[in-house]
C-alpha cells in the first residue's frame, strides 16, 4: 500500500495513458472488453487519486522524481538544481485531480450508451483517455515545459473529441475553433516559458520560484502566461470559442472540456501564486484577475439570457460561473501581501473561489449532460421546439432541477455555500463587486427558469409523444454527479475544512512548494 501511495503520482498519469493505447487493441477482441477496460482504468485512477489525497492531507505534499533512486530526491547528487522530470502534487493539484477524474469517470459511463451508434468508437475512447491524461499531467507536473506538453495533449485530444461527430458541420467548426485558440494560447505560453528559461536556465517551477525576481522580462512572461491561460479558460474578452465548442461536443465530452478549461484556471493560479507569489505586484495583478472575473460573470450571463440553443445557453453560464472563481481567488491574490486582510477575508474569498470550482464541475457537468440528453432523444437543441419533457423523462428533469437550483445558488444546494463565501468576503474587499455577483446569480436563476419552462413543462408535443427516458448507462453517469451535488450540499463544512482549505493553503504558502524540491538535498 505504501509503495502504491509513493508511486501513485506517476501511476495516475500512466494508467490512463497506457489504457488509451490499449483500447484499440482490446476493441478488436470485443467492444464489451474495451468498455470494461476504459471504466476500469478510470476507476483505478480514481482510487489512486483518493488514496494519494488522503496521504497528502495527512503528510503534506508529494514530490515524485522520475528516474531517481528515491522518488523524493528531486536534486541528484552533485547538482545544485533539479534536472530530472519532477511531479509535484500538493493540495490544489490533488484537488483538481479529484475533479478531473471524477467528472471523466461519470462522462465515460454516460458515453458508453451515448456513443453506441457512432462509428470509430476505438478512437473515441483513446482520445477520451488521452484527455484525462493531459488534464492529470497538467495538474501534477512540477515543470513549466511539461505543463506546456500536457496542455497540448489535452488541447489536441479535446479538439478531436469536440469535432468527433464529423457528420455535423457545426461540430467540425466548434472543434476547429478550439484547436486554433488552443494552438495560439499554448504557443504564447511556450514563448513565456522560453523567456523565463532565458533569464534563469531553469524550468522547474519550485526552483524558478526560489530565484524569481520581478523584472521587465518576468513581467512580460507573466503577461503572456496570463493571456495564454485566460484564452484557455474562456475568460471574457477571450471567450469566443467556448460557446461554440461546448455546444457541439458530444455529451460526455462537454463536461470534460469544461473541466480541462478549469485545469487551465489552475495553471493561472499556479503561475500567479506559486511561480511569482510574493514577488509580484499583487494589487495590480489581483485586480486584473478580478476585472476579468467580473466581466466574465456579467457578459456570460447576459449572453446566456438571449440564447435559444440549450447547450449554448449552458456554455455561456459556464463562462459566467468561471467568473466567480476568478473573482474569489483574485481577491485573495490582491491581498496576498497584506497578512491582516488575508486573514480577515482574503482566505475566505479564496476558499469560496476554489470551492466553487469543484461545485461547478458537478452541477455544470450535470447540466451539460441533461442538455445533451434532450438532444439525444429529440434531435434538436432549440428550446423553442421542445416542451413537456418532464412527463417523458422524469429522472432527467429531476437531475436538471437539482443542477439548475445549485447553479443559481439557492440554499441548501452546494452552489449557495460557495457563492455565500464569495459574497461575504468580497463585500469586505469591495461592496460593489459583491452586489454584481449577487445580481448575476439572480439572472442565472431567471435564465434556468426559462429553460425548465420551455423544455420540461407544458403540454406534451405531438411529435414527441413516445419519447422515452434515456438508457441506463446515461442515467448512471448523471446519477454520479447528482450524488456528488447532494453530498456536497449536505456536508459543506466537512468539504471546506478537509479538501478546500488544504488547496487554499497550498496556493498561499509558496515556501512549502519551493521547499518540496529545493529542500530535498541528497
Amino acid at each position, binding site marked *: 500500500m505504501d509503495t502504491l501511495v509513493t508511486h501513485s503520482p506517476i501511476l495516475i498519469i500512466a494508467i490512463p495513458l497506457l489504457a488509451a493505447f490499449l483500447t484499440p487493441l482490446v476493441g478488436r477482441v470485443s467492444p464489451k472488453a474495451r468498455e470494461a477496460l476504459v471504466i476500469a482504468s478510470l476507476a483505478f485512477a480514481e482510487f489512486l487519486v483518493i488514496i494519494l489525497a488522503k496521504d497528502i492531507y495527512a503528510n503534506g505534499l508529494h514530490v515524485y522524481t522520475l528516474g531517481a533512486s528515491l522518488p523524493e530526491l528531486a536534486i541528484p547528487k552533485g547538482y545544485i538544481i533539479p534536472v530530472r522530470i519532477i511531479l509535484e502534487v500538493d493540495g490544489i493539484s490533488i484537488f483538481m485531480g479529484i475533479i478531473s477524474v471524477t467528472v471523466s469517470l461519470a462522462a465515460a459511463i454516460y458515453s458508453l450508451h451515448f456513443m453506441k451508434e457512432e462509428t470509430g468508437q476505438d478512437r473515441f475512447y483513446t482520445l477520451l483517455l488521452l484527455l484525462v491524461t493531459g488534464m492529470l499531467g497538467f495538474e501534477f507536473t512540477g515543470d513549466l515545459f511539461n505543463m506546456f506538453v500536457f496542455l497540448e495533449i489535452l488541447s489536441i485530444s479535446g479538439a478531436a473529441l469536440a469535432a468527433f461527430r464529423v457528420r455535423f458541420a457545426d461540430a467540425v467548426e466548434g472543434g476547429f475553433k478550439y484547436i486554433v485558440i488552443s494552438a495560439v494560447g499554448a504557443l504564447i505560453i511556450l514563448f513565456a516559458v522560453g523567456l523565463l528559461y532565458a533569464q534563469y536556465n531553469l524550468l522547474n517551477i519550485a526552483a524558478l520560484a526560489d530565484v524569481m525576481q520581478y523584472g521587465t522580462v518576468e513581467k512580460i512572461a507573466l503577461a503572456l502566461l496570463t493571456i495564454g491561460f485566460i484564452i484557455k479558460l474562456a475568460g471574457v474578452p477571450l471567450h469566443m470559442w467556448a*460557446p461554440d465548442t461546448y455546444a457541439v461536443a458530444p455529451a460526455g465530452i462537454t463536461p470534460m472540456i469544461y473541466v480541462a478549461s478549469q485545469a487551465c484556471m489552475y495553471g493561472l493560479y499556479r503561475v500567479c501564486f506559486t511561480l511569482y507569489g510574493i514577488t509580484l505586484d499583487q494589487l495590480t495583478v489581483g485586480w486584473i484577475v478580478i476585472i476579468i472575473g467580473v466581466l466574465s460573470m456579467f457578459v456570460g450571463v447576459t449572453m446566456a439570457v438571449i440564447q435559444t440553443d440549450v447547450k449554448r445557453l449552458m456554455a455561456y453560464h459556464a463562462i459566467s460561473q468561471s467568473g466567480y472563481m476568478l473573482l474569489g481567488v483574485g481577491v485573495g491574490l490582491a491581498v496576498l501581501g497584506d497578512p491582516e486582510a488575508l486573514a480577515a477575508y482574503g482566505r475566505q474569498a479564496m476558499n469560496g473561489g476554489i470551492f466553487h470550482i469543484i461545485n461547478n464541475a458537478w452541477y455544470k457537468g450535470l447540466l451539460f449532460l441533461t442538455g445533451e440528453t434532450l438532444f439525444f432523444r429529440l434531435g434538436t437543441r432549440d428550446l423553442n421546439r421542445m416542451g413537456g419533457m418532464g412527463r417523458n423523462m422524469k429522472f432527467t428533469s429531476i437531475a436538471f432541477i437539482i443542477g439548475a437550483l445549485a447553479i443559481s445558488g439557492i440554499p441548501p444546494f452546494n452552489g449557495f455555500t460557495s457563492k455565500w463565501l464569495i459574497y461575504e468576503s468580497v463585500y469586505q474587499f469591495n461592496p460593489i463587486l459583491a452586489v454584481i455577483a449577487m445580481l448575476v446569480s439572480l439572472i442565472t436563476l431567471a435564465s434556468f427558469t426559462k429553460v425548465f419552462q420551455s423544455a420540461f413543462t407544458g403540454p406534451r408535443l405531438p411529435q414527441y409523444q413516445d419519447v422515452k427516458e434515456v438508457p441506463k448507462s446515461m442515467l448512471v453517469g448523471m446519477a454520479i454527479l447528482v450524488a456528488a451535488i447532494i453530498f456536497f450540499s449536505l456536508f459543506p463544512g466537512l468539504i471546506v475544512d478537509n479538501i478546500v482549505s488544504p488547496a487554499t493553503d497550498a496556493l498561499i504558502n509558496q515556501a512549502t512548494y519551493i521547499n518540496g524540491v529545493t529542500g530535498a538535498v541528497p
Partner: protein
Amino acid sequence: MTQGIPFNIPFLAVAALVGIALYIIMSKRNLIKLVMGIAILEAGVNLFLITLGYREGGVAPIYTDVPAGVMVLPVPQALTLTSIVIGVSILALMLSMIVHTYRHTGTLDSEASRKLKG
C-alpha cells in the same frame, strides 16, 4: 561576438515571424491561411527557443569527453524537438478539420462557412 553575425539578428527574425503570424491569424478569413499563420507563429517560437541555447562557436552537446570550449545548451534543443512534434500533429488535425469543413460547406471562407453565431 565581435565577428560573424550580430547576436541580435535571430531575435529580430523571431519578432518579425511572430508579428507576421499574429497579423495573419487576426486578419485573414481563409482557413488555410489561418493555419499557415499558426505554422509561422510556431516557427517563430521554435526559432526563439533554439536561439536561446546558441553559444557563439559552441560545439554540439553530444560528447562524453568534452572538447575544450563552450557547448551549445542542449535543453532548448530538446524543447524545440518536442514542440515541433506537437506542432506537426496540431497542423495535421487542423488541416483534416478544414477538409471536413470544406466537404460540408463548400467554402474555405471563415465567414461564409460559419454556422455558430450569437
